[in-house]
């Protein structure tokens, strides 16, 4: 009686597609939610609010981290850790995203195991990139001239 597969109107667990118009926020830095998103159509800008401080009033209020496109995903940190959003996401032009809840992620990983590979690869690449930035920052602190080399962007997508 209880051994039925998870189902919803779209037949893919609790996944659902949502559409956004240009400039609409998909998620906001600091808010609590535990969904992740896969871009099905259009582009999404990821940004953080610039921390307030002396001499920063002339700078843009946001720091753009990346512009993501069809097939890219974001928001996985909040899904995995249950912590507030680390950055905001905003549709660039009209965009459609697949919304995945923690329960739906488990269903997807069972049926689409390569998604786990891609997710882990992204997180691994982010750790590598953070390490590079840490080394660069420490080298800069120590006055090393090599510190000026730009480490890769956190959200960079590798394509060869």
């Amino acid at each position, binding site marked *: 009686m209880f051994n039925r597969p998870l189902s919803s109107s779209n037949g893919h667990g609790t996944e659902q597609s949502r559409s956004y118009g240009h400039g609409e926020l998909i998620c906001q830095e600091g808010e609590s939610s535990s969904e992740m998103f896969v871009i099905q159509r259009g582009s999404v800008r990821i940004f953080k609010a610039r921390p307030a401080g002396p001499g920063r009033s002339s700078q843009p209020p946001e720091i753009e981290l990346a512009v993501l496109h069809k097939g890219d995903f974001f928001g996985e940190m909040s899904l995995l850790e249950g912590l507030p959003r680390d950055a905001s996401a905003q549709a660039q032009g009209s965009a459609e995203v697949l919304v995945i809840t923690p329960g739906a992620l488990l269903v*997807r990983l069972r049926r689409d195991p390569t998604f786990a*590979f891609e997710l882990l690869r992204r997180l691994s690449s982010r750790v590598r990139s953070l390490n590079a930035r840490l080394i660069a920052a420490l080298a800069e602190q120590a006055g090393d001239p090599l510190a000026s080399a730009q480490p890769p962007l956190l959200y960079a997508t590798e394509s060869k």
Partner: protein
Amino acid sequence: MIIDTQQERLVVVSDLHVGNPYSAASRNLGEFFEDALRRGYNVCINGDGFEILQARFASLAADSVGVLRALRRLVDGGRSVFYVVGNHDIALENFLSAWSGIQITPFLNVTSGDARIRIEHGHLYDPSFVKSPRFYEWMTRAAGPLLHLYPDVYRLWTSYEIGKQRVRSVLRGKREAENVYHDAARMLLRRGFDVVVFGHTHQSEEVVFEPGQRYFNSGNWLRGGTYVEIDRGQVSLRRWGAAV
């Protein structure tokens, strides 16, 4: 390891089973690769290229030489060669990656023109493989000697799988026969892909789920010689020598 790649022109072949006594690949593939080189196409072998579960080592070694030489000519000619690992060649992963020039990958996300294309062997969606990979491997090895008596033994297995899915659909009261590979392709398409290409089943096919969302199976080179051609985002299923 490369899983994301930009490719304007790529041909995808699968299930070559080089080393299998009935594989047409060792005879015809060299010419096919020459053609790809001449026309400026990169090449993706989408799993089960080399037969290590069912073939004798002597025939695998003998048949591989020509194919490896043809691959070398492609690489020397400046073409990229990708090898997506299938269920018959998992053990060859390290050997092939050590062989310079071939890019080994578990799957490939290709951007071509405006299209995003997923290329994957497809065995991860085979219920029998998922249920027990070791038993599946044992069954595959056991079927090896049968190939010498009846070369189309793989068709018996495919027919068994199709029949099983039909029975399951009837038992669940569904009008259309379930197809695990179509379901898997739909799951992937929801992740922003326009086209999904599998191999594994040996059945070449093209299915349009909805406009702009298609599934291909690149078939096999045991008896046939089908392949998927990607040309600046346009994807088509072809037979070597003629369009399918």
